């Protein structure tokens, strides 16, 4: 059975290979979800992307795409009646330019989200690559002016569910050793001991916060990532996780409460009591 048919009939697709996806350009993002992306596209980028220290203002994050963009000289075709080939080329160039301006800047955000859900840099890279492949193929179905980042995240999430989740760990199980190893494998070996320990907030190590976050049930961790790290609105998150806004609110409330309990435990290990917080 071909990949396209398998997807349409919701059959198991885990045996298909990456090149089958590339060949098929498979999986249309759900059209009904896209129609809901009609709200203001404005979201703020929360913080900057750093290799190590996210307080260092020197290293800003955007992938250096602008100086590598091929030039598209559309002036060449102005005022001329175009052949069929010329029309196709112009349309394709326009699509590329729009894609590079709208979709590519979200690469870091997508990569970080993929890292969180796959816990594996290689898988994260594959997942992001396939996401952009599908996004580019179906870019004409993306409604301009709506939130492209949210659209991309939805594609990534669906890709993950279809391609990766079946091979991943049992949901709900947390392997702390895996988290610790993974975290150390991708961050600089420099330890964060430069903070003055004036309160428990500053005493918390990045690793501890990361572990606390990953100790949460997946549905709580997911909404916290999308809200607090990526800055999506409740409506956008509701679209992405296919749940009502009320459920998103509830998961955020319960997730943060659980997280707080975990973090207090770490704080006590550092000799601080939350009653004496600032």
């Amino acid at each position: 059975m071909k990949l396209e048919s398998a997807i349409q009939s919701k059959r198991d697709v885990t045996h298909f290979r990456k090149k089958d996806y590339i060949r098929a350009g498979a999986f249309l993002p759900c059209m009904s979800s896209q129609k809901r992306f009609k709200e203001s596209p404005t979201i703020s980028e929360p913080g900057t992307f750093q290799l190590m220290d996210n307080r260092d203002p020197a290293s800003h994050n955007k992938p250096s795409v602008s100086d590598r963009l091929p030039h598209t000289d559309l002036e060449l075709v102005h005022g001329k009646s175009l052949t069929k080939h010329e029309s196709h080329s112009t349309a394709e160039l326009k699509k590329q330019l729009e894609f590079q301006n709208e979709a590519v800047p979200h690469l870091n955000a997508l990569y970080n989200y993929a890292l969180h859900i796959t816990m594996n840099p290689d898988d994260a890279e594959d997942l992001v690559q396939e996401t952009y492949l599908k996004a580019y193929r179906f870019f004409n179905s993306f409604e301009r002016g709506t939130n492209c980042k949210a659209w991309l995240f939805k594609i990534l999430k669906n890709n993950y569910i279809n391609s990766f989740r079946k091979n991943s760990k049992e949901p709900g199980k947390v392997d702390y050793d895996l988290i610790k190893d993974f975290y150390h494998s991708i961050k600089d070996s420099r330890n964060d001991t430069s903070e003055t320990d004036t309160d428990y907030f500053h005493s918390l190590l990045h690793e501890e916060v990361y572990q606390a976050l990953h100790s949460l049930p997946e549905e709580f961790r997911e909404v916290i990532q999308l809200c607090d790290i990526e800055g999506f609105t409740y409506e956008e998150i509701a679209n992405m996780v296919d749940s009502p806004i009320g459920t998103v609110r509830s998961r955020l409330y319960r997730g943060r409460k659980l997280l707080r309990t975990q973090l207090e435990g770490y704080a006590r290990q550092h000799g601080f009591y939350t009653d004496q917080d600032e």
Partner: protein
Amino acid sequence: MSAAVDCELSMTEEPGFFLHLSKCKRCSEEFDEARKTKLIIKERVIRFKAPQSLINSIMQLTCLSQQEAGRHESPL
């Protein structure tokens, strides 16, 4: 509570919520704790730059199509 922390309260919900906070110490403390937790996540979770290999392959994705387009008749 979480909606208040994320500035997602509606115009009708907001006044009532903050009025309650001004009177209820327990809720007020919980609100502060929730805000602090959100801040911790925002500031303490490190975010990583995508590897150059990934950036290159995404750029190639859009450049490949342009190479194909370039093989068609020149507009000049």
